[in-house]
């Protein structure tokens, strides 16, 4: 896993803005609780409400593909920048709403609603 992804959240001793993903658990901490990397390994994953891509980029090293969707354009722009910077090639991000998903039927193996519903 990319080192930057592993250390980009949860920095100790700093005040960070309330909406920042740095206030969330590390992606691998959450993934471990849910069942570990095998939950997403080789799977087509949708991170619904992905924000700045915190979780999507965290699970991308294990997944076949990761799609991130969020209504926040700034968040999606940030996720795309992070994906480019971290060299993540199997993640795509788009602006959209959960009530009308821009995907065909049955195209995902795992859908994650992390701090979304």
């Amino acid at each position, binding site marked *: 896993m990319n080192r930057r992804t592993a250390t980009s959240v*949860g*920095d*100790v*001793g*700093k*005040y960070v*803005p*309330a909406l920042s993903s740095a*206030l*969330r*658990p590390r992606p691998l*901490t*959450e993934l471990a*609780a*849910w*069942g570990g990397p095998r*939950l997403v390994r080789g799977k*087509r994953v*949708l991170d*619904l409400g992905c924000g700045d891509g915190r979780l999507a980029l965290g699970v991308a090293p294990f997944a076949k593909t990761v799609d991130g969707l969020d209504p926040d354009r700034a968040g999606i722009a940030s996720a795309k920048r992070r994906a480019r910077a971290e060299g993540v090639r199997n993640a795509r991000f788009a602006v959209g709403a*959960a*009530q*009308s*998903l821009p*995907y*065909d*039927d*049955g*195209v*995902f*193996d*795992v*859908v*994650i*609603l*992390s*701090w*979304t*519903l």
Partner: protein
Amino acid sequence: MVDALHEVHRVLAPRGILVDARPDSRLLAYAERRSGGTYQRYGVVNTARLEQANDRASDRAIEHVVREGLFKPKRHGRIWHRVPFDSLAALRLYLWDHLRFVRRARWTVDAPTRRRHANDPFAIRRAVRYEVLERVAP
């Protein structure tokens, strides 16, 4: 919320997995002071009423789609997560800004003790619940 879960059901493959994870407002959060490698509890922090109502609505939405037979629960649990701050003032500022929590902690240590340690690192420790569900064919 139920509409979104119907959409999730649509885009999931047969026996696909849905993970729902979010802060657990049914449990108090804690304001803690870090001392060396350990944390001491200095107070408790309630979730704002509006957020508690939103969380209950989310719970009901999940229960609804389970009752509809679209998903079946596989497992659930909870993790505890610390949000770190470099001082008591930073923690207070966070509570003031953050809509999820009430704006003031309920302190369980006296004011002189808080003042004495005001420049120490603090944290808010809160519960995050998760539920893993499996898509059921309609």
